C-alpha cells in the first residue's frame, strides 16, 4: 500500500504539469453555448486527449492502457483534475467505470477487445432499472431467450444516462423465470446499433435530457456477448458496481473541497447586514461554513481510509453504502447552503444546464441535481437497509 502511494505521488507532477499546459479555461461557458451533442463530443475529445497523455485511466493495469497505479493513482489524478478545475468526461462515466471494470474482471478475450474502444471515447449506457424495477431491481422483467447462437431480448429499461449517444449497453435481463428472482438474471453487452432498439430521452427536473428510456423489441444479442454464465448477472453487476461507485467518490470529495473554498470566497463578496460588512462576517453563516468544512474533512478522512482498506483487502462490501450515504447527504446540505446565499440570483432560469458535473457552479441546479445522488444507484433508504442488515445484523426486510 505504501508503495502504491509513493508511486502515485511520483506521478502527481506529471499530471499537474500536463494540465497546466493544456488548460481548458472557460470550458463551462463554452459548453453552455453548445448543443447537447456538441457537449458529448467535447467530452469525448477531452477523454482522448487525456488518454493520449496517459492521464485518463492511470489506475488501470498497464496491459489495458493504464499506468498500473491503482486506487492511489486514481486519487492523485482526481485531485489534480479537480485542482485544475479541468472537465471530467462524465458521459463516459459508465464506460470508464462500470463497463471497463466488468470487462477486466469477467470479460472474455473477445469482449475485452472493447476496452481500447472505451479509451477511444465510445460511450456505454446502463440497462438496469425498469419502470417496475427501481429499488427492487432484482424484480426486473426484461427477458432474454436463447435461440441458437443468439439471445432474443424484449423489454424496457429506464434512467439510462446518455443512452442516445451510447454505442453499447450493459444489460441485465432475465434468462430463467423459474428460479428465485436474483438467480435468473444474466449480464449482457448489447450493441446499441442492433435492430429493434428504440431510445427515447426523458427530460429531467433540471431541464436537461440526460436520462433515456430504452426499448428492446426482439433484439438479437450474440451468445458471445453474454458476460459470465446464465444466472450470474446479479453477482457480476454487484461486484463491480460498488467498487466503481466508491472510486467516483474520490473525485467528488475533491470537488466538494474546492466548492467550499469557492463558497467562502463568494460569501466574502456578498453584503452582510452592517454597512461595509460581508456575509462571511455573519456568525450564523460562519457557523454553517464551519459545519460544512467539518464534514468535508470527515468525508475526506472516511473516503481515504475506506479506499485504503479496499486496496488492502480488495473487498469494499457495505463500505460503499456508508460512503455514498455520507457523501450524498452532505452534497445536498452543501448545495442548499450554497444556493441560499445567492438570493434571487439563484432562482433565475438560465436555461437547461449543459455541464453535467455535480458541482457545476450553478448553485440551484447543483442543489436540485443532488437528488440524483440520494436516489440513483440505491436510494439513501436502500443504503440504510444494507447497513442495518449486512453490518448491524438486523432482521432482513420481508422479501416475497
Amino acid at each position, binding site marked *: 500500500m505504501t508503495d502504491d502511494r509513493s508511486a502515485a505521488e511520483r506521478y502527481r507532477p506529471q499530471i499537474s504539469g500536463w494540465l497546466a499546459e493544456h488548460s481548458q479555461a472557460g470550458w463551462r461557458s463554452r459548453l453552455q453555448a453548445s448543443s447537447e451533442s456538441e457537449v458529448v463530443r467535447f467530452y469525448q475529445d477531452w477523454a482522448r486527449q487525456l488518454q493520449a497523455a496517459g492521464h485518463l485511466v492511470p489506475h488501470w493495469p498497464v496491459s489495458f492502457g493504464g499506468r498500473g497505479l491503482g486506487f492511489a493513482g486514481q486519487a492523485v489524478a482526481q485531485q489534480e483534475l479537480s485542482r485544475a478545475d479541468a472537465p471530467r468526461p462524465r458521459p463516459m462515466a459508465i464506460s470508464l467505470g462500470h463497463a471497463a471494470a466488468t470487462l477486466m474482471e469477467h470479460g472474455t478475450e473477445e469482449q475485452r477487445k472493447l476496452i481500447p474502444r472505451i479509451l477511444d471515447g465510445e460511450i456505454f449506457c446502463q440497462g438496469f432499472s425498469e419502470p417496475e424495477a427501481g429499488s427492487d431491481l432484482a424484480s426486473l422483467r426484461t427477458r432474454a431467450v436463447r435461440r441458437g447462437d443468439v439471445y432474443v431480448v424484449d423489454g424496457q429499461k429506464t434512467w439510462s444516462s446518455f443512452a442516445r449517444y451510447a454505442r453499447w449497453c450493459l444489460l441485465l435481463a432475465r434468462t430463467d423465470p423459474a428460479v428465485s428472482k436474483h438467480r435468473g438474471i444474466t449480464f449482457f453487452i448489447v450493441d446499441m446499433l442492433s435492430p429493434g432498439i428504440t431510445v427515447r430521452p426523458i427530460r429531467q427536473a433540471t431541464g436537461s435530457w440526460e436520462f433515456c428510456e430504452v426499448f428492446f423489441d426482439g433484439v438479437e444479442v450474440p451468445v458471445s456477448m453474454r458476460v459470465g454464465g446464465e444466472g450470474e448477472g446479479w453477482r457480476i453487476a454487484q461486484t463491480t458496481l460498488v467498487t466503481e461507485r466508491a472510486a467516483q467518490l474520490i473525485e467528488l470529495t475533491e470537488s466538494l473541497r474546492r466548492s*467550499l*473554498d469557492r463558497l*467562502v*470566497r463568494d460569501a*466574502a463578496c456578498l453584503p452582510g447586514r452592517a454597512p461595509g460588512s460581508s456575509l*462571511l*462576517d455573519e*456568525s450564523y453563516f*460562519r*457557523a*454553517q*461554513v*464551519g*459545519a460544512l*468544512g*467539518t*464534514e468535508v*474533512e*470527515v*468525508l*475526506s*478522512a*472516511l473516503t*481515504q*481510509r*475506506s479506499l485504503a482498506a479496499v486496496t488492502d483487502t480488495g473487498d469494499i462490501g457495505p463500505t460503499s453504502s*456508508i460512503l455514498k*450515504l*455520507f457523501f450524498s447527504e452532505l452534497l445536498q446540505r452543501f448545495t442548499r447552503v450554497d444556493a441560499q446565499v445567492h438570493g434571487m440570483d439563484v432562482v433565475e432560469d438560465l436555461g437547461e444546464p449543459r455541464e453535467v458535473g455535480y458541482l457545476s457552479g450553478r448553485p440551484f441546479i447543483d442543489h436540485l441535481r443532488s437528488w440524483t445522488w440520494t436516489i440513483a444507484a440505491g436510494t439513501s*433508504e436502500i*443504503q*440504510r*437497509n444494507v*447497513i*442495518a*442488515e449486512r*453490518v*448491524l*445484523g*438486523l*432482521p432482513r*426486510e420481508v422479501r416475497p
Partner: protein
Amino acid sequence: MTSTAEERAALADAVAGLLADHDPVDSLSAVVDGPTGYRPETWGLLADQGLLGLLVPESLGGSGGCHGDVVVVCTQMGGVLLPGPFISSAVAATSALVGVCEVTGTRGTAAEELLGDLVAGRRTAALVDGNQLTSTGSAEQGYVLSGTVRRAVGAATADAFVTTFGAGDEVVLAVVERSAVETAEVRLADATRRAADLRFDDLAIPPAAILAAGADAAAVLRWAELRIGLAVAADSAGGAREVLGLATSYAGTRVQFGRTIGSFQAIKHKLASMYVAVQSSAAVVAEAADVLDAQAPGVQLPGPVARTVTAAAAHCTSSYVSVAGDAIQTHGGIGFTWEHPCHRFFKRAWLNQAWLGGEAAMHLTVADLLTADAGLPQPDGAPADGRTAWSAV
C-alpha cells in the same frame, strides 16, 4: 515514530483487557460515588502499563507513544466510560509539561519533577485555564494571581494545577500546588469526571514555579490543546460505538407487534444513521492523529493541522451527542431509567462537547481556519492565531 496497525490492535486488546471489569452496565455507579470517583488500583495499572506516560518521550521517562496510540487508548476508555482524570491529567497536564521540557530544554526543573510523578501515577494534575485571572508582577519577580476559575475538569482530585494566565500581552504557564488555592468541588452531570472551582486569593507565583512564557508558552499550549481535542474526540468515538452496540442488541431482542423492533425500518434506519456517525468519527479521529504524528514535536503547528483536529473534535462530539440520544430513543422507557447505562453515555457526550467549547464554537473555529487558508480577512473577534475553540482547557 508511529505504531503499525498490528501494534495498535495489540494495544487496543491490552487496554480492553485491563479495563474489562470496568463494565459501565455493572460496576460504574459504585465507583463514581466513591471518594475520588475512580479506582486507585486501576490508575496504578495504567501507570504500570506505561499508559500514563503514553505522550511522554522515552528520554523524559515515558513510553514514547504516538497520537495514533492515544486514539486507541482513549477510544477504549470511552467505550467503558472509564472514570478518572486520564484526559485532564495524562493528556492535558502531561502534554503541557512535556512541551515545556521540549521547548525550554531544561532538566531537573519543576516541570520535570511533576512529570515524573504523573507518569508514575504518584500524583495527578489538571491543566487550568486562568485567562480570566488578574495578574500583577513580572517574570523576574514572580506574579500575584487573583480571581476564580470555574469548573476546571479534573481539578477536584488533582494534586497540582498546571495553570495558564495572561500577563500583559504574554501568556504564562506555571505550576500551582493544590494546597495553595481554595478548591470547591462542582458535581458534573457526568459523574465519571470531577470538576472544581479554584479560588486564587492573591496567590504568589514565584519565578521558580514559572514553566514557560510568551511564544514558548503559546506553542506549548497549542500542542496541548490539540491533544486534548484529539483525546476527547477519541473518547467520544469509543463511547458512541459502545452505546450504538447497546441499542443494536436491544433492537435485535426486543419484541413488539410480534416482531423484533430491529426489523422495522424506522428503527433500522435510525441505527444505520448512528452507524455512519460512529464509522465517520473513527475515520476522522484516526486521520487527525496521523496529521499530528506527521508534525515534529514543538514546532509551530500549521493551519490545516488545527483544522483537521478541530473537525475531528467537532464531528466526534456532535456525533456522540446524537448517537447517545438516539440510543435512549431506541431503548424506549427502559433507556430512560437510572439503572440503564444510556444516560451515562449521554452525559459523557454532553460533557465532552461542552469541554471543547460547544458545537458552534468549534464550527466557527473551522470557519476561521478555512477563511485564513483562503487568505481572507478575519472578522472582528476571531482569534488571529486560529486558536482552538476550547482554548487552554
